Each structure stands twice: as C-alpha cells, then as structure tokens.
C-alpha cells in the first residue's frame, strides 16, 4: 500500500517538475499562419481552464489542488481525458494499447521463465562444454539492456537483411480484422520484439537457475538419490523443483525489470502498446495519460508480486509451515 501511494504521488509530481506544460505542446500543434498574439493568448488560457490548470479568473490552479483532484477522480475509476488528444479519454487510448503490451509481455515472460530455468538447470547438471558456452552467453544476454538488443536485432534482421519488419504491430497496408492474413501479419511483426524480450529474460533466469541447481546438486538428498540409483531425469526434476522456489522470488524482482524493458522495446519497435503510448505522452507532457499509464503498470506489477508471494506460500511447505506455526 505504501509502495502504491508513493508510486502514484511520484507519478503525479514528476511530470509537473518540467519547465513546460501540456498546453505548450498543444499550442505548438494548433498554431496557424494567420493567428495573432492576442488570439494565441486567448486560446492558451482557454486550454488552461479546460484542463483544470487555471480557473476562469485567470488564476493558476495550485499543484496541491490538482493533486487532490487527481486522487479523487482516480479513486472513482475515472482516468480523465487526454490533454493533447482532447477530447479522447485516457481509457480510450490505453485500452487500444494494453492488449498489445499483454500480447508481448505475458508470452515472453512465461516462455522466457520456463526456458531459462530449464536451460539453467541443464547447464548445472551437464557442465562441460555445454556450460562453458551457455554460461557466458547467458551472462551476456542478462547484461544487455532490452533496448540495446532490440536496436541490434532491428538493424540486423529488420534493416540490413530485411527478414523481419523493423517496426509496427502489423503491416502498413492492413487494418485489424478476423482474417488469416492479419493474424499472420501480427505474428510476423511479433517475432523481433518477442525474441528481444525472451532472450534477455532467458539469460537472467538461466544464470539464477544454474547457481541454485549447482547448490542443490551438492546437497545430501541428491547424493542419496544417486546412490539409490534413481533415474537421472527424476533427480533433475527434484533439483528443478527445489531450485525453483528461490527462482520464483527472483521472478517477482525480475518482473519490474522485464515490464520496464518491454515498454522500451515497444518504443524501439514502434510496437503499439502502453510503452509507446507512455513515451508519446511523456514527450507531449500529457499528464493524464502519463499518470494512468504508470498507474496501470504499477498496479499490475504490485498485483503480480502479490500473486507470486501467495504462490510461494502455497508451493513452499517451509513458508506454509512457518506461517501456520506463527498463527498458532
């Protein structure tokens, strides 16, 4: 709860610390050849009043008043109206962007998590040449910022080789529809941003899993299982199960990094998700969209962390038992 309150407060304050405000951006766009200074000033004030940044007497609204107005409307579930895309509502902007972000993030996080853990466990178990190649590769992938890898992939596969489209969510000569051609186009445009997300995520997860698995492989129960002649595959599964629990905690921490990275990937690939909408809003100082976008990201991140905490409790008997003993 404290995290949430701090997040939405910062979310409100940070965009307003700039030298400019959204009306400056709007006025840059609406200027016309014949406009006079007098008319410019009149329009400027009209926009300021319209967006609650000034009252009808020409007095600027204080930041405290704006904050309480923002909290009040947010608590009612009203995300407001975009300033720079007026009269479009913030929800209208985000509801078109959100599915694209989910479509990019959920599969890549899930697949990256599963593959990363399997590959990490295998590296720990097999060792040898497999580990010697895989370990530095994973370290490299883990260390590369999402947007850097994205730019490299765009340059190689999108611009130089022209194998995959370098930007967009679907082909330029299409509109969304329930057709095979559209789905194929969406998938085709999905490959590069998805690969960027997955590769970096695999790197991070694999390194963690490798370390945990090496630790687990040295434990008594593994040695005992080996002595009993239990199948190698079964032992690996035991190792994975035990090493997974700290990895699950690690996932909670990695999610923030992954979601932040996905937002940047959307900008690199001009992928039409929340990241791109937020980027545009930040450039335009569109306070309501910035606030709502970050609010959605914050809430979903907190919710996912909460779910992971519950999952750890359910999956790890040690946590469950310690909780039960405290209750007693």
């Amino acid at each position, binding site marked *: 709860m404290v995290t949430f309150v701090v997040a939405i407060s910062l979310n409100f304050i940070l965009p307003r610390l700039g*030298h*400019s405000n959204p009306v*400056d*951006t709007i*006025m*840059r*766009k*609406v200027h*016309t*050849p*014949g*406009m*006079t*200074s007098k008319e410019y*000033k*009149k*329009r*400027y004030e*009209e926009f300021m009043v319209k967006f609650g940044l000034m009252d009808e007497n020409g007095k600027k609204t204080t930041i405290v008043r704006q904050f309480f107005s923002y909290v009040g409307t947010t608590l009612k579930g009203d995300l407001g109206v975009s300033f*720079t*895309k*007026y*009269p*479009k509502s913030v929800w209208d*902007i985000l*509801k*078109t*962007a*959100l*599915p*694209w972000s*989910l*479509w990019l993030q*959920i*599969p890549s996080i899930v697949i990256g998590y599963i593959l990363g853990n399997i590959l990490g466990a295998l590296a720990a178990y097999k060792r040898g040449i497999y580990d010697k190649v895989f370990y530095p590769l994973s370290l490299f992938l883990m260390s590369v910022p999402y947007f850097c890898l994205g730019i490299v992939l765009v340059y190689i596969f999108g*611009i130089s080789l*022209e194998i995959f489209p*370098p*930007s*967009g*969510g679907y082909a*330029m*000569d*299409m*509109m*969304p*529809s*329930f*057709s095979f*051609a*559209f789905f194929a186009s*969406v998938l085709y445009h999905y490959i590069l941003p998805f690969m960027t997300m997955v590769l970096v995520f695999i790197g991070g997860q694999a390194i963690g899993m490798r370390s945990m698995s090496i630790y687990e492989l040295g434990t008594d129960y593994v040695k005992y299982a080996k002595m009993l002649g239990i199948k190698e595959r079964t032992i690996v599964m035991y190792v994975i199960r035990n090493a997974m629990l700290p990895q699950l905690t690690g996932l909670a921490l990695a999610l923030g990094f992954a979601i932040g990275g996905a937002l940047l990937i959307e*900008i690199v690939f*001009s992928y*039409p998700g929340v990241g*791109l909408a937020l980027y*545009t809003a930040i*450039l*335009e*100082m569109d306070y309501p969209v910035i606030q709502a976008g970050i609010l959605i990201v914050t809430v979903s991140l907190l919710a996912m962390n909460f779910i992971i905490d519950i999952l750890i409790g359910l999956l790890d008997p040690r946590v469950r038992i310690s909780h039960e003993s405290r209750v007693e």
Partner: protein
Amino acid sequence: MDKIKYIATLPFVCAVLLVVGCGTANRSGEITDFPRDKTLIMAGFVWSPPTSFNPLNEDPTCPMTGDCFLVYEPMFGYNMLTGEMEGILGTSYLFSKDTLIVQLNERAAWHDGSMLTSEDVVYTFGLHKKYNTNLHSDCDYFDDIKACGPHCVKFLLNTKKLNPLIMQEIIGTALIIPKKAFYPLEQRCIAEVKTEKKGKADPDDIFEKINAFKNDSMPLSSGPYSLYTYSDQKIVVKRFDSYWGNVLHGGAMPKPEYIIFPIFKSNEAGNVALSQGNVDLSVNFVPQIYNRFKKGVGTWYKDKPYFVPGTIACMLMELTKKPFSDVHFRQAVAHAVNYEQIRKLSIYGYAPPLKPGLIIPFGPEKKYYNDSDAVRYGVSYDPGKAREILKAAGYKWGDDSLLIGPDGNKLETVYATCPNGWTDWESAARILVTGLRAVGVDVHEKFVEEAIWWKDLLNGNFDITMYQTLDYESIATPWERFYKTMGSFEWAPPGEVMYIDVQRYKNPVADSLLLLLPTLKDEKSISEVYRSLNIKFMQDLPVVPLMYRPWFFYEFSKKHWSNFPTADNPYSPPQCLIVGAGIKGLWNINPLGK
C-alpha cells in the same frame, strides 16, 4: 496434454482478439487488407492517433487539414513552381477596389450528388468569421461575404486592412464544408448552449460544442477521396469514383484507390519503410538520401540539391538584449557563421548555396531578387571581417579571447537553443556556435524539448535560437516571410507572447513598406518595395538566414508506383500529391503491381 496446450494457447488467442477488437474503428464488411497495387502509402503527414476529422477543429487530423485537399476542397490550390493559384472548386477570381469576386465551378458537387454552391461557401466563411476557428483571424481581412449567384461569391474587403495577398491565401486554404451537414449541427449546438446557459448563446461556448464533433462517420465531402477507416496506427481514405472533378482530368479517376497514412513514431521508422518500399511517398527529413537511390528511392532532382528550396531557416537573436540589440554585433556574427559548412554537413547539400537577404533567389520569388544589392549589402562567411566590425564598434577581446563590450564589461555567456532531436538544426546550431566562439562570443548550444523551445521562443526567453519565420510557401510569399520577420505590429516586451517577429525587431519604415506592399498592383512597384525591404533586412539583420530548406522533403519509392512528378517530368509540383496544386499527380502516377 491437449488441455494444457489449449490453456497455454488461450492467452495468445485472447490477446489477438483484444487487439483486433480494440484496435480499430472500422465498419463490418469493409476491406482490411488493401491491395498494394491500388494503395498509396504516405509518411510524414500524421504523427499521433487521430482525434478529430472535423475541418473546423483547432487541430484536425490529416486529411482534414487546410493543406490537404483529398476529402474537403478549397476554391484554389497554390502551385509552388509557377507561383500561381490553380482552380479547384473555383475557376477564377477578380479583385476590385474593395471586393473580391470568386467564380465557382458549376460542376462542383458533394458526394451525395447535390451541387456545391455559393451557399456552402458563404456558410463556411460565415462560420470562420463567427467562431474562433483557425481561420478566424484571417477573416478580419474581409467585412462580409455574399452570394452573387449560385456559383459566384463576393467578399466585401475590409478597406482598413486591405490585403489581397492574404485574401488569396485564404481562398487557397479554407476547406469548403457542406451547409446541409454543418448547419443542423450548429443549430443543435446553439440550442444546447442556450439550454445550459439559460438563454445565453456565447459564440465560444457554441464553438466548443461544434469543435467536439469528430466528423468521423462517413462525412459528406466533395473531394476525390472520402474517409474510409482509421485506427490509432493509420488513417485510410478511399477514392470516390464519381468525383465531380474527374472531368478536369479527362474523365479519369485518381490512380490509387486507397491512400494510407501510417502513424510513425519517429522519422527513422518512416525512412526505413520508404527505403524498403513499404512507404511510397514521404515528407520526412532523410539523412543522406542519395544512399537510398539504389533502393529505388527518388527525389525531385536526381542530383543536388534534390529538393526545391522554399523556406529559410534562420538564427534569431533576442533583440532587446545586449549585445544583440547592437546592429554591428549582429553584422559581425553574421560574418562568423560558415554557411557552406551548414549546407554541406547539416542538410547534406539539400539546398543551393545561401545568398544574402530574405528573398529566395529561385522559383517564383526570383524575379524580386536583386543580385547587385546582395553584393553591396549582404554578408558572407568571413571571420576576419567579423573581427574588424567588432573592433570598429568598440568591442575588445580579453585574455581568454572572449569579447568585452564597448561599455567595458565582459559579454555574458549565452546559449543557442533548438528543439531536441531536430538533427539538421542541431548540427547547424553546433556549426554556428563554433563560428561565434571563434570570434570571441561565449556561446554554447542547448537542445531542449520542442514544447519548451516553442514557449521560450514566443515569450522572448532566449539568447540565440533557430527558427523558420515562415515554414511554408503560398501566394503571399515572400511578403509573408518579411511580415513575420520584420513586422512589429504586435510588438510586446519579452515575457509577453509575440506570434510574429518573435525576435522583437522594431522598424517603422519596414512596417510601412509591409503595409504598402500587398496593396500594390503593378509588378514594377512591387519589385521596388521588395528591393527596399530586402536592403533594410540586410542592413539591420533582424535574423540571420542560415540555410534554404524545401517546403516539403518530397521523396518517393518506385517499388509499387511509377511516374512520380520530378524535375525531368514536371507535370505537377513537388507538393506530395495531396497539397495545393500538387494533387493532380494522383491522376498521373501508375501502379507497378499486376
């Protein structure tokens, strides 16, 4: 296992369905996969998701803007090559002492088949005059507009503000809207305001309601295309096969059946798409365009300068501040800037060499340019001369090689600003900073967000900045360029907004010449006044021109379409096939497809 597979694929399917469901405003049954050989894709016209297709809106989305004539049309379109107005809804116009009479094309019709008449034109201008639209200020140049027949309108000019140049610009940009569609809307808005405000109907309140009308559901229009569909990623217009104006093109229809305006988030994304042939026409700044020629990209000229010069990017100094208020200082810094380096490095040679003055010595303005005046009064890159001028004006150099003013005080550190990310301007700013530092000015470049730069520019909150005082061409150039650079009609001290003459220059002689020029009729007098204005400009240097730039960076890809207008095949001006007289290009390009 099958169940697991099903559950695993479910989120993917849901996401795709959501994307499809939320991502578009298209109607059922319409085409969503546009045949490439019938579709023209254009980059650089739309930069953010559409919010309004209402041509009366303060910020309508292309193609409803005043320079795009696809859906709604004005009476005339400007041709940047000839400098003339070409008929669209109008056929001819005639000025008298206090009137402007425009004859409309008798064939002009709306898409529902009804005739487009003087009633629609009178109603359109009536709305602009009544309400605070983008053309509201321009309507001060006429007192009234009346129909003088079903296909004739008469503007009663404001004799206190007589300006035939602006009047011609207005009839070349005001999109005519159908009275039958907008009158009921206006009446409904008036009634709503009266109900809300207890009988009072303030025009600003009424216009706020009219302004909110999105006009995105099959709007009635007269142009060769109509709005077909749109999403947050693109806008599509579809050819109207029975367009009345096809008769002006021998009965043929425009070649592209669909025109798509994708919304790119960066210049680079659009530039890559152009190189790959996914975009057919672009107006973005493309660095080193010549490197893309081998990929089938073309420009107006095959060789340098590739584009037609139409505007001038300038260095502005805030003239109420010292030392910029000193004309000697301005003359000196103008000699310190390496213009050729800017031309070659900042804009890759996309313009001819800069000549002194505020008149572009090419195209329609060439006839007003006087070479001997340029030699006599103009400046050129000469750091030695810059130092001489400064020395003669009483400036000295300190031990640190920085300038000390005539009053004995060291000149303060100043900043040269320009919008962040405008790479050609940033590069030019760096070059001018290097030049100014070389003669002792303590100046540094500072790149700021566009909105901040714009706010500071209008409020006079800058030392040195980059700006184009006029960023388009029209029938009123070069007068309008002089007016916006030297006209002190709205002069206000720094801190208050100035919309023209943002560097705050004041000269009564220039003001009187600017008022006189639009009223003149004979070419000799016009040339003389332009000459006087240009001499005054070169002597006072209210701004320092840095480089010519094209009105449009007109670039095309030959992958899907051919026969784009070029300097070798100039059947249409390089106005991107949708602006002004350039629209006739749509009837002449050819698909390469099937």
